């Protein structure tokens, strides 16, 4: 059941020394019923996706749509320009010189897909986001080098300051800290 989130706390953070410990911790936390949590690591860890039960991202679908849109726009531009907007006799070639329109269409497809991928990924990740509560923990500085962190947020229904602290300590971390909001 939801209870009032503590306004003075974002969550509790446990620091681990290696990836295995983090994956174990995340699995155990999930089994313990925690849902609103996040893991932080200096490298991507595929097993974490399972441990945290992350949904598959819809980015590939967006990229496909972006590519299709790019391709259709590219060809449409070429067709419209050559056949409708300003048709000209160029070397007696047909106005709709579709074989010669293919390279540009290909490139606009790639561009559409790549731009969608880039913008889509960062947008879905809600980045840039210069501020986040986890940066308030000094130990977190090593998250980008060689330490692994698990944070259980106060918005989680099972969160209870002492119980969750105890639970995290039971995972044998290097340390547990409070995360200011």
């Amino acid at each position, binding site marked *: 059941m939801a209870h009032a989130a503590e306004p003075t706390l974002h969550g509790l953070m446990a620091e681990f020394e290696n990836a295995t410990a983090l994956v174990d911790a995340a699995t155990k936390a999930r089994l313990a019923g925690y849902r609103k949590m996040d893991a932080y690591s200096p490298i991507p860890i595929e097993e974490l996706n399972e441990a945290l039960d992350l949904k598959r991202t819809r980015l590939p679908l967006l990229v496909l749509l972006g590519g299709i849109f790019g391709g259709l726009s590219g060809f449409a531009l070429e067709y419209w320009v050559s056949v409708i907007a300003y048709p*000209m*006799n*160029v*070397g*007696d*070639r*047909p106005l709709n010189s579709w074989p010669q329109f293919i390279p540009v269409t290909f490139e606009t497809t790639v561009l559409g897909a790549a731009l969608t991928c880039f913008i889509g990924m960062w947008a879905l990740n809600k980045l840039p986001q210069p501020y986040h509560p986890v940066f308030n923990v000094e130990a977190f500085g090593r998250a980008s080098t060689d330490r692994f962190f698990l944070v259980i947020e106060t918005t989680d229904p099972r969160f209870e300051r002492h119980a969750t602290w105890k639970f995290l300590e039971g995972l044998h971390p290097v340390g547990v800290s409070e995360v200011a909001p």
Partner: protein
Amino acid sequence: MAIAPLPTAAPLSPFDQEWRRWLHDGLIPNTAFAAKTVALQGAAIGAAPSAVPAGLEVVVRPDPSVYDGRFVNNGWLQELPKWLTKLTWDNAALMSPGTADKLNLISGDVVDIKHGSNTLRIPVWLAPGHAADVITIHLGYGRERAGRIGSGIGFGINSLRTTATPDFLSGVEVTKTGESYELVSTQDHWSLEGRNLVRVATTEQFQQDPNFAAKQEHQPLVGLTMFEERKYEGYAWGMAIDQNVCTGCNSCVVACQAENNVPVVGKAQVANGREMHWLRIDRYYSGDLENPDTYHQPMPCQQCESAPCEVVCPVAATTHSDEGLNDMVYNRCVGTRYCSNNCPYKVRRFNFLLYSDWDTASFKLARNPDVTVRSRGVMEKCTYCVQRINLARVTSKLEDRQIRDGEVLTACQSACPTEAIVFGNINDPQSAVSKVKASTLNYPLLGELNTRPRTTYVAIVRNPNTELEPTRPLGTEEEGH
């Protein structure tokens, strides 16, 4: 406004009346010389020298561009590639390759030509077909005070000529100096390289096979295109160039330069292959270099229907008009030069620098106001004198009629003394150009590239005197397939 009355003519004096009659008739009556009886003096012929003097002989000739030197200050004529040698901005000592070989000379070697006590230092240029042991030097060059352009150009023959021997100098000595001089020619390669660009046959061969011209190259079948050939309604401009009568005189080249504001670029730029003539005359030798067959082939833009230049222009600066002209849009051209690279005829010219003088105000009077003056970075080429076509079209519309055959004369066509260039509407079967193109001798140059040029050439039929010219003319050896 009152008009002043015409002055009344004063009555003519009797002398004036007679004078006018003499001018009209062309002679003064009763002033003819008395008839005289004459007899041939056969002895005089026997007394003429029979032996050819030893050593080389210099022949002094008027220059094909600057004549006797009166035109040295004319940029157009200095840059005009001379007939046969294609030299520009200089004269040279012309000699046959055999003579040069004997003297151990190549084109550009500077020699001292000594006649009596006079010496002229001049570079040599090899001229296939030139008489052996004779050197031709053109008049007019080497002037010191000839204006801004003409001063200090070329080598003055007058230091060798004497009043006794103004035209022929026998017994000259030629010494190699070991120096080199850069002579600039617009065409360095004279050989057809076995390519059937100029198609030739003897009258006998022509009578046996009137279609020899078509057979001498692998040509695309009519209609062999992936697309439907466009139909041109209205006017369809075309040109035919008769190689049988072209003498290579260069009139067309200068006419084109005058008509189309073609800039003069100077010797250094011509040396780097940047001359701007829209129309050039290609000169090919074939056979023995001491006595070759010489061919002249004027090359304007061929106005190809499937122009390779149009397809590769990224900004559509060259497209096809609905009368069949390959239009060059100067103000759209950004100067990628892809069109020039893709032109198999290399008729396109690029303004590598600002060749046209934009500053001198008096040039505005010299230039043709109907033709754009091009800036640097812009491509240009023969346009079938589109300004003249447009003028004729406007005139004919105002007069509510069609353009008559012969009403539009391109500049080159109107200057040609032998009427080698014929231009007109190929959609009109009665036009002069259609009749020329209907001949079996008519062929497109590089037709196998399927460019479908609107300018075609008439193959040469020669009637050689087999006692004088035992060698067979070009083209009959290789049958294309």
